[in-house]
Structures are given as C-alpha cells and as structure tokens.
C-alpha cells in the first residue's frame, strides 16, 4: 500500500488552467468579436501617448470638422471641439479613464456584494432578513438619483465614482450570489463539509463560491458594460472626472449645445462608449454560450 512506484502526475498550475478556460471563448464567434473590441480598447488605453496625434488638453484650432488639416500640417481625423482640442486624442486618452475606473468599480462592487450574498444565502434567517432589507432599500431608489446624491455629497472624483458604483451595484450582486448560494448550499458536498466541522466562512468561500463562478463571471462582464455607461452618464451630468482631463461622457456633455450644427463633437465619444459596452456585452454572451455547452 505504501509503495511509491506509482507516479503521480504533476499538478497543473492555476494560471495554466485559467488560460485553458479562457481559450474556450474561441469557440464562440460572438464572444470573439466582443473580446476583439475589448482588447482593441485596452490596447488603445495602454498605447495612448503613442497613438494620440495631439496632447489631449491642448487647444489647437476650435470647431474643426473631421478631416481638416491642422496648422502644423497634421490632420484632425475626428475634428476638434469648441475649445479646439483634438477629439481623436481626447477619445484615446479618455479610454484610459474608463478602462481604469470601470473594472475597478466593478471589482469593488463584487468585493462587497459577494460576502453579503454568501452570508445571506448561507446563514439565512435574521442575517438574510437584514441584508435583504438593506439591499431592497438601496435598490428601490432610481439609480441616477442615487448617483447624484452620493457624488453631490462626497464630490466628483475617480475614487468617488468607484464608491458610488459599488454602493449602487453591490445589492444587485448580493441578490445574484444569494440565489446561487441558496441552491448550492443544499449540495451534499456542503453537507459533508458541515459534518466534518468546517467553519461557515470556509464553507462559503471554499465549498460554495467556486461553484458559483460561472454565472458570476458572465454577470461581471455584463456589469462592466453597465458601469461604462454609468461612468459616461456621470460625466454627462457633470458628476464624472473633473475637467479638463478627457472623459467620454464629459465630452458629450460639453459639446451638447453644438450638437445641432457640429454633431461630430458629440457623436464620436458616444460611438466610443457604445462600442466598449457592446464589446463587454458580446463577450458576456460568448462566455454564457461557451459555459452552457459541455
């Protein structure tokens, strides 16, 4: 019984497994398109200083239409805004803000929502009643009103956007997690863990949470899209990142009054927002498609 002759294959590294799992998305055409769009924007954000033809906040020539030549000889591919800043450069630099704060806010929302959902779903009873009540109260506010109240109270800045999004999204995440846990907690392996005296938090985090990851990853992708919209909306309402740094929502808002005769100023940032949201949504669809197979 104790002979060591039988060799045991090496354990696969978790990183390799993750890569293998991610490679599954190749089997979904929709997912690949989504992934392509997202990867495109990530690349743009990383390479922003190299790609942008002009500094984003420098006024060059006001009210230039797309394709006009700059005094220095370069071309304003997407035109300039009312202050003469190059729209293409601002969009390129603006992607950095969105792609920094949207994932960060989503991550924070999950960081808060998951433990709440785990506790509510696994403990049930009073804990569930209290957490669900809090969630219902928050969810009963119109989201926009909630954002305005929060940002107006604590001020407009990147980290405050993260706080506002976390506050508004965590209850929704809690509900999803709670639903998943209510199903998973009745599995026999959970029962087995209970009968060997595991602590509740270990059961929640090690036995239950990993098995809820499929739906949560899909939801996270969708939610990333919503948060991109949210950041855009906040920018449009003037509650986003403080000027003059480029912010897609803010760009639309600032140029709104010129939209009648110079639509390019508002349209291009809108297209940027939509394409990124679309990318996340398609990626989520693809992930769902792949996860339902097999």
């Amino acid at each position, binding site marked *: 019984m104790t002979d060591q002759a039988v060799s*045991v*294959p090496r354990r696969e590294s978790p990183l390799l497994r993750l890569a293998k799992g991610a490679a599954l998305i190749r089997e979904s055409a929709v997912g690949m398109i989504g992934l392509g769009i997202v990867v495109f924007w990530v690349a743009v954000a990383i390479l922003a200083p190299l790609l942008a033809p002009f500094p984003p906040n420098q006024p060059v020539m006001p009210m230039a239409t797309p394709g006009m030549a700059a005094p220095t000889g370069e071309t304003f591919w997407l035109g300039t805004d009312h202050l003469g800043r190059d729209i293409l450069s601002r969009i390129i630099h603006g992607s950095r803000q969105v792609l920094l704060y949207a994932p960060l806010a989503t991550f924070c929302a999950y960081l808060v929502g998951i433990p709440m959902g785990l506790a509510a779903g696994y403990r049930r009873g009073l804990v569930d009643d209290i957490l669900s009540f809090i969630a219902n109260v928050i969810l009963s506010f119109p989201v926009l009103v909630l954002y305005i109240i929060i940002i107006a109270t604590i001020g407009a800045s990147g980290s405050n956007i993260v706080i506002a999004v976390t506050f508004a999204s965590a209850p929704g995440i809690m509900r999803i997690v709670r639903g998943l846990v209510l199903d998973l907690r009745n*599995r026999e*392996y959970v*029962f*087995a863990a209970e009968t*060997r*005296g595991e602590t509740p938090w270990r059961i929640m985090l090690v*036995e239950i949470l990993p098995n809820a990851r499929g739906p949560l990853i899909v939801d996270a992708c969708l939610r990333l899209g919503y948060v991109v919209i949210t950041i855009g909306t906040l920018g449009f309402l003037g509650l986003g990142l403080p000027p003059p740094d480029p912010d897609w929502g803010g760009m639309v808002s600032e140029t709104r009054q010129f939209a009648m005769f110079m639509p390019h100023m508002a349209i291009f940032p809108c297209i940027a927002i939509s394409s990124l949201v679309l990318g996340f949504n398609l990626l989520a669809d693809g992930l769902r498609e792949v996860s339902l197979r097999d």
Partner: protein
Amino acid sequence: MDSQAKSFDGPVLECRDLCISYFTRAGEIPAVIDFNMTLEQGGSIGLVGESGCGKSTVAMAIMRYLGGNGAIVGGQVFYKGRDMATFSEEELRQLRGNEIAMVYQEPMASLNPSMTLGRQLMEVPLCHENISEEEAYKRARQMLADVNLPDPDRIMSVYPHQISGGQQQRVVIAMALLSNPSLLLLDEPTTALDVTVEAGIIELIGQIAEKFNTSMVYISHNLGLILETCDRVNVMYSGVVVESGTVTEVFDHMRHPYTKGLFGCIPLPGASKTARPLVPIRGQLPLPHQRPPGCYFGPRCDFFQKGVCDREGLGMTSVPNEPGHDVRCRRWQEIDWDSYHPEGVGAGEMEPGEVVLSIDDMKKYYELTDNSIAALISGKRVRYVKANESISFDARSCQTVAIVGESGCGKSTFAKVLMGLETATDGKVVFNGKDISQEEVQKRTPEQIGSMQMVFQNPFDTLNPSHTVGSQLARVIRKFGVEKNKDRIEQRVMELLDLVKLPREFARRRPRQLSGGQKQRVGIARAFAGNPTTVVADEPVSALDVSVQAAVTGLLMDIQKTYRTTLIFISHDLSLVRYLADRVVVMYLGHIVEQGTTDEVFAPPYHPYTEALLSAVPIADTSVEKTRIILEGNLPSVTNPPSGCVFNTRCPRKIGEICETQDPPVVEPTPGHQIACHLSREELARMKPVIVMAEEASPPAAE
C-alpha cells in the same frame, strides 16, 4: 388515424434494424444500433439496461421526437404496418398523444402546475376529438376512476401540487390513456416514487393491457419491475440488444454473459453476504464513441476470446427450440454455466463486538411557529413536527444496522442528529461512551468527528466539482488531524485511493472526469479518512447502476470488515438491506415500528408495515411467489400525524378504535425482536411469509 389503421390486426409496432445516432461537435455518435422489436396488440415489451444503454432513445425514436441533434440513420419503424418515415408532420402530431402516448419518470414535470388537473385531462379529448366540454369532463372523470384514484371529483378540481407523487403519476397515466392509445410508452414511470406507492402503480400498469387492450413498451433499469409488468424483454447494453425473449426464457434460462452478470449483481432473496455473495461486473460501460470492436461487452466478459469475440459483424442468433429467444453472442453455446463460479464480493462471517453507538429514547422535534391570525386567537402558535419519536437501538462494532423506511420517515433527520448538524430534543445518543445528543458538530473534538463520518447518496453531488479529488481527501485528513506533514498527507491520500481500488492518478482529477461509481468510491474514501469507528451511509448506492451497485456495496463491506467499522446503512431498498444488514430498524413517520436481526425482520411475525414493504419490493426471480399487499391512501404529513398508531390510516390489519386512540405496545416475539403493534401475539404468530421461493427447495429467505 383512418379506419383502416384502427382495424389493423398485425403487430402494433415493429422496429427493423433501427439505428439511431446523435450528432455532436465530436461527430456522429451511434446511440442505438441494429434494434429489432415486434410488439403485438395487447402485448408488452420491457427494455431493460443500465443508464446510457439507449433505452430511452428507442422510445424517443418511436415517437419521432429525437430533438435537434438526433436522427434515425438506418432501419425502419412500422406503426400498424405503415413505415413511420412516410408520416407527415401533421400526421405525426395526430399520432402522438392520440395513438401513441408516453409516461415519463417525473410526474410533476409532466403536469402543468398552473392548470387544474381536470382542465389538463379534458384537453386531451378536446384536442384530438371533436366532442363537447361536458363529454370531455365525463370521460376524464371516468378515466380517473379507472386508474383507481379515490374521489375523482376532487382530483378534477385541484392543482398538481395538491396531490401526492403517486397520485400525480396515476393522473399522468390516466391522461395517456384518455385518447385510448394503441401504444403506451412508459419510461421509468415509478423510479421517482416510494416503494409502496410504486407497487400500486405497477399493479395498475399490469391491468392496463387487459382493461384497455393497449400495447406497452416499458423502460426500466429494474429487472423485478419488468418481471411484474411485461411478457417479453429486451436486454440492452451500450446501444445494442444483447438478449431478447419472453420474460420467463430470459429470466430462467439467460444465455448472454451480460444478462447473467446483471442477475448476479442484484440481491435476490437467495443471496447473502456470507453464503451467496453478489458478483459485480468488472469495468464500466464503454462510452458510445469508445466501444470496442466486435462484442461491446467483450472487455468486461469472463468468456472473452481473442479472435472470436472482437470480430466485427456480430448479429443476433436464435436459441434453438425457443422461438423468439435471441442472443447477441458468438460463444453462448460453448459457455458452461454450471462450472462457472465467479468470485463474489461477500464479507464472510463477522463477529460483532462491543456496543459502539447506543441510542436511547431519542426524540427530535422541529418547532413551527404559526403566525396566522387564527393561531393567534386560539393561542396555539407553536406546533411541533415530530421528525423522530422515541428512537432506541444499539449498534455494535463490525455490525451493519440498516434503517429502512420510505421518504419522510425521519431517516435523514436521524442522520443529522448523529452527525451533530442538529441536536436531539430529548433522549441520549451514546457514542464511544459519551453522550453526543446535545453536542453540535462545532463542539465535538476532531477525533469525535473523524470517528463518525458519512457516505452520501448522490454521486453527482457528493464531491465538490471545483476541487480535485486529492485536495478534497487531503482536506479531510488535515481537518481530522490524522496527519500533519504535507508529504504524509499526500501518502495517506494515496493509501485511501488504494483502499477504494481507484488508480492513484485520480488524485489529480476533478470529479467531472469520474463516473458515478468512481465518485461514490471517493465518497467512501473520504468517509474513511479519519479512521472512523462508525460510518453512516445514506442510500450510498441507490443512484448507481445495478452492476456498479454490487461493486460499491462489496467495497463498503470489505472496508468495514478490515476496520471493524459499524455501518449505519440507511436505505429504502429492502433486497439490499436483507443482503448486507445484520440488524434492521424499520421506521414509519418518525417511529420505529419494528426492529430485530435481519432474519427476524424478514420472516414472520411482521409488523403490518414491514409486511407491506416486503410485498412491494419487485423481485427479479420467477420462482418467487409474493403475497400482494397494496397500501391504500397517502403517507400522512409529519406535521399532523395520526393519533394512536401512526400507521393506522393505511394499515391493512387495523383492528379497530384501539389503533386510533392508543399508542401501540411493543411486542417481543423473540428477545430483541420488537414490533410496535396492537395485534395480539397469536395473530402475529399466524402471519405467513410474504415471499416464498416456489419450486426450488432452496433455503428459505430467512434461515
């Protein structure tokens, strides 16, 4: 269909060389190959085989309902002499439900929860025939009476969830019969039901053919049920029929090694773990795309001969002098069954040791708080669910104590109290000399927890799909403090895998890469990780296929013998209990109604409930004669149990008022054999055995 089809008097259904494939990403997967079957009018054919053998696929193909990725790739199906491939979509729609009806396993899934049963039943004639609402109502009501449902008027007006599972299945059968179909397909119609309820449904199915002249195809994994319902049987293995013939031919003179193997796996009344142990079929069912060449059963067959059995083009051969009895085996005439004595997985004699677990008058009540206004006014706000009432028994080391009962009898609650997930309301549970009835699992020491562990029922649920087999076993070892050092833990994991006869590389696998039986083996390894003195096994093999069941049961007994473990075996399968248990505790609605040694419980005198349970178990042996006892009524609710004897509402031997008013006394016909019943000693003594082996003078079931 037209009148010509109705008056057709040839076979109702004929399958000729039917081949069915599923098309997946991995390519074409043949699910059923070369399937032949002829079903005469009023006849019944059983399709029997383990999961994945293609029996349900055949039924779906007959209905022409294979889904998007399935297709008939060869052969024909003739319905009343007409090739079904020539039917148009519209004709098929008329055929389904009108001429061919199907009953599925899960009754609740077949009924619409938002419609009254009457409405759903009336839809059938209203949809297929041009008749009035009143006529449809009358027909539906009559059919409910015909399937022996009490109070059909009430059933007509209620919703599916308001009646019990057994009643639901009767309604589904009634619905199938309403259009007076020529052919009824039953796909495991009783698998989801309790054994006493099943007995009633089986009796009904047996009557269908004569009452309605309906032909039946009965699909089941249970050979005993086939014997009770069918004239002919097709034994299927991995997509092919390996043996077909009349039920008596196949059951008494089986020719194919697989059929023989199946019968060796089921605990028939003659089998016992000491004298006639079960013989599992080694290996496992090949995956459809990994079938071996020639005979698909070859790799698992003891009579496999290279060059003969692995040649392609294996067809059915007829058994001479037995028309209609066909075997798919090249060597069946050469096999000498008389000199074939495979080694079984018996445990041998075991001498029980000292008392390890002693339960004394244990009670577990759940409190229900009623917040309704009526309850506030009457002041009765708290009600009790008496899940366990006065449970007392002892278990010795090396002994197997079986707890038998149907769903809702309190078996699971009892297990929870033992494991410390619930505390007892009253009474004592003495384990290794210490009362643990009030100790929750968090308060128990690692040794205490490790020395009482559990094997669970559902193989697909028992292991965490996110973690490897090795890491799950390692966690248990660390948790119980058996080993501390990382290498020693690794070593111990390997030993445990050896113990349950699994290859060591399984440590790195994830549960989804394992078959059901293999997962259950890991579950057993996990339970034995902390060197337990007692293992509670909650229906450990009931979700497994018959051939795997025998192997896992054998393994469990083997390990029990090695470690002299006490096994608390919770089960509803009386055949299995008779096979492996030393003592049996029969529970009904939280009460112990009878307990004693296995021989005492399985022989008269019985408690009337035990008697009914025994009679309800289907036995796949033509030489066994059973007394038929069908329990009337439903299992009462635990929140509102009957007064007096809890079994009085369904008891066929009820004496009178005394059963409803007084708790039954405990009678001891022999020391240690306890029956809680009002029947007098004389009446108990007059009881006849329920199961009698007819012809053979083999030793009686309980010797």
